[in-house]
């Protein structure tokens, strides 16, 4: 029988996980939250340094003369423009231009790349590599990864890294030594804050964890589970596979599929790049004709919420974590879309959601209504389409 696996950090994370709040992520146990409430973990991301075990990410090493050609063909980005040490966020599509998965591509050297993904993609990569001089290997288990996120993350890393990170720009990567251990560090993350991801051999995992925890003690370093991360990523306007979109490989019906344009990834689709890439024809067509859907941010109007709850004599009730559910969105009495994740933003003091709206309702400033349940009754709270991300601190890219 297939069993859930432990990440290489389990010895540390399990000792700290008080509520036994475990979640499943890509076949691994990961901590949902380390404490009974997640507030402290959330605030660590925004105000201090959050240490998150992100080992379950799928990781692939792509090596060889044609490594860049393969990724140029598979992803929507212009990989040939990428310099060594650069990291691209990208989605990849089927040939109908519908998103299969998304992740990051890091150029380790001229002919070596590391691709991360939410789900297994080895067959897709192999299918695309026909006739190419390239070697694809999955390193999900052998490479452990930690995400250190928050405004204090750089200063913590600088205390323990051989070369400091002051010069490392947003979405760049360097080889480094952390507490004497060989690692690569990329300035990436899933929080929309200043943050880094540290990639290491699985056997060095505990050592790196311990060095960071010790170095971060005076800077508020806090082990953080994925529930707090889920709130932060909504604030950052970042979507998640299987929550905010369905991989075209798993969709039962056409309407469950999404294109990168529909998810607001226009900036990642390099239609000006040379040659064929998977989905090109369909994406060109969609670009030309306009997208039927678009993922946007919506802010639910607090006063409107108060009025709906006042009818039953209650103040607005807001869940303590991000809600992953489909919530209908209306204009007038007609449904024009749905929200896929909603969350209270403790920092913005706003109730926000990632929503998928039909043309033309996805334009900024459009007034919509989102379905909420007030004492078991369906109600519709007023909301407005706003720009993503909801939150973007100046230090994110500085």
């Amino acid at each position, binding site marked *: 029988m297939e069993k859930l696996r432990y990440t290489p950090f389990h010895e540390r994370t399990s000792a700290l996980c008080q509520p036994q709040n475990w979640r499943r992520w890509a076949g691994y146990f990961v901590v949902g939250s380390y404490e009974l409430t997640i507030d402290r973990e959330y605030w660590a991301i925004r105000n201090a340094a959050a240490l998150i075990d992100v080992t379950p990410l799928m990781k692939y090493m792509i090596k060889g003369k044609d490594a860049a050609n393969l990724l140029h063909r598979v992803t929507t980005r212009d990989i040939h423009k990428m310099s060594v040490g650069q990291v691209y966020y990208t989605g990849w599509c*089927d*040939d109908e231009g519908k998103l299969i998965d998304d992740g990051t591509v890091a150029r380790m050297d001229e002919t070596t790349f590391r691709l991360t993904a939410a789900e297994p993609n080895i067959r897709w990569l192999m299918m695309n590599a*026909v*006739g*190419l001089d390239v070697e694809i290997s999955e390193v999900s288990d052998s490479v452990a990864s930690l995400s250190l996120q928050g405004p204090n993350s750089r200063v913590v890393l600088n205390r323990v890294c051989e070369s400091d990170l002051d010069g490392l720009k947003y979405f760049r990567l360097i080889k480094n030594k952390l507490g004497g251990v060989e690692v690569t560090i990329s300035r990436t993350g899933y929080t929309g804050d200043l943050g880094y991801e540290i990639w290491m051999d699985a056997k060095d995992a505990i050592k790196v964890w311990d060095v960071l925890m010790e170095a971060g003690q005076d800077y508020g370093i806090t082990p953080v589970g994925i529930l707090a991360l889920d709130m932060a990523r909504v604030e950052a306007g970042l979507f998640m596979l299987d929550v905010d979109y369905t991989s075209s490989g798993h969709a039962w019906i056409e309407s469950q599929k999404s294109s990168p344009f529909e998810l607001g990834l226009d900036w990642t689709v390099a239609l000006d790049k040379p*040659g*064929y890439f998977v989905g090109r024809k369909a994406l060109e067509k969609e670009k030309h004709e306009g997208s039927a859907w678009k993922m946007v941010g919506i802010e639910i109007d607090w006063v409107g919420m108060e009025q709906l709850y006042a009818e039953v004599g209650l103040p607005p009730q807001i869940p303590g974590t991000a809600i992953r559910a489909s919530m209908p969105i209306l204009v007038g009495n007609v449904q024009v879309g749905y929200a896929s994740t909603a969350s209270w933003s403790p920092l913005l003091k706003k109730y926000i959601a990632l929503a998928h709206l039909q043309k033309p309702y996805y334009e900024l400033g459009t007034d919509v209504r989102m379905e909420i349940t007030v004492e078991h009754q369906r109600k519709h709270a007023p909301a407005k389409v706003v720009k993503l991300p909801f939150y973007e601190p100046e230090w994110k890219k500085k």
Partner: protein
Amino acid sequence: MKTYDTIIIGAGHNGLVAAAYLAKQGKKVLVLERRDIVGGQVVTESFGDDFTVDSLHAGGTLRPDIVKHLNLASHGLVVDSVRKPFISLQADSNHLVFDVDPAKTVESIKRYSEKDAANWIPFLDFMKKATQFIETANATIMPRLPKGFNLSEGMALAELGLDLRMMGGKDMMRIVRGIPMTADEFVDEWFESDVVKAAIASLGIHGLTLGVYGAGTGYTLMHNWSNRGGLSHVSVQGGIGKITEALASAVKSLGGEIRTGAEVERIQVDMYTCKGVVLKSGEEISAKNIISAADPKHTFLTLVGAMNLPPEFVWNVQSIKMRGSVAKVHLLTDGKHGIPDGTVVVAPSIKYLEQAYDAAKYHQISEKPYLEVTTSGNVVSIHFQFAAYALNSGVQELAPASATASRRTSELWNEKRNLVEKIAIDTLAEYFPNLKSSIVNRKSLTPLDLEQTYGLTEGDLNHGQIMLDQFMFMRPIPGWSNHKTPIDNLYLCGSGVHGGGGVSGTAGRNVMKVLK
């Protein structure tokens, strides 16, 4: 750089048929042929003094509408009007003869079974109807399932259904049932004698890598019968090459160009539109449309390149089963070979045919092969099944596509060429004792020769096996059954598309219906 309306890759019968139709429409057409002669599989070649043979196919007839539309008679095409008998060799020399005259056939069958003899005429009537159905099906452009089909494709299918219905309920069902059947089951519904059954069933596996117990050989029996118009070959006066010579002459007289010795190295693709071709010589030629009469594997994986194609499409093309297992052995004799005129088969029993095929399953050469033999004066031409293209080296299993595997295939075929010749001659000599002493010269063509000389991937005459999962709307691959390709302005017209397989020209004619 020269520019054409249409470039056609390959001057085989299908490529030339398409070229002639286009030239007739006033299009500026260029046919590019890698060999120094036109004809593809439909060639008559000389392998020495007085040693001129129909290299790969002993006979064939283009569809009558093609012959008429292109006025091929005026270009020297004379199809042999006298059909010759089909003879199944028997150890006692009392051969089973399917004569052109059905009454004589009935007499010959009587020796084996009165019942079978009585069924011969009804069987001929049924096969006539089956042939009509296959002809209509082959003339219908298949819808691109499972992508759903538009109204015009639906109409074509509806017409096909209507044709089938018009045959009457009983025959319609019998034809539909016959498609997935084995050739053995198919003939078993009509005949009881093993000798009679085997002779007819052999047509169901001719040119294919399947045995008579293989599902779908009922269909291929009808398919091959339809192409030949019966059991025996229809030979062409002066050699089968006259067909493609006449076509080439028609192309030229209509203003089309044909260049031989002009091998296409690749098809130039800009994003997903083809722009032209690059020849081995480095010369570039552009065209609005390109039609490839080469097999789909070669066209997509070599000429276009996997990098320019969607991954699922590439996966499907890689999965096309080629698996050639036909070899040809041509013998020049002093004339005393003793073999009667006609289409002569070594197919003594159903079991014999299935066991001959077993060799192909295990990547070997049949020790007791199914042979189809034709003669032309002193020349004896033997069609040999089964000699697997991918021979088992006995050393280790290799992925067929790997470079090492293809080198090994070359080495093995250099060793085994003589073995195929020996088995072919020994097998036939059991029936014709004078054969061996009559041989003056010989020329064999292995499946590897079929690939290297005639450009047939894995030596497959049909550009992809005609099997249930590779026929009709699944030919060459599911979703791309209408001659179109993921590359805009690139079309297919060879045997690998629906309508293809055999010397009919149907695929070359059909592509005209979808060209933009």
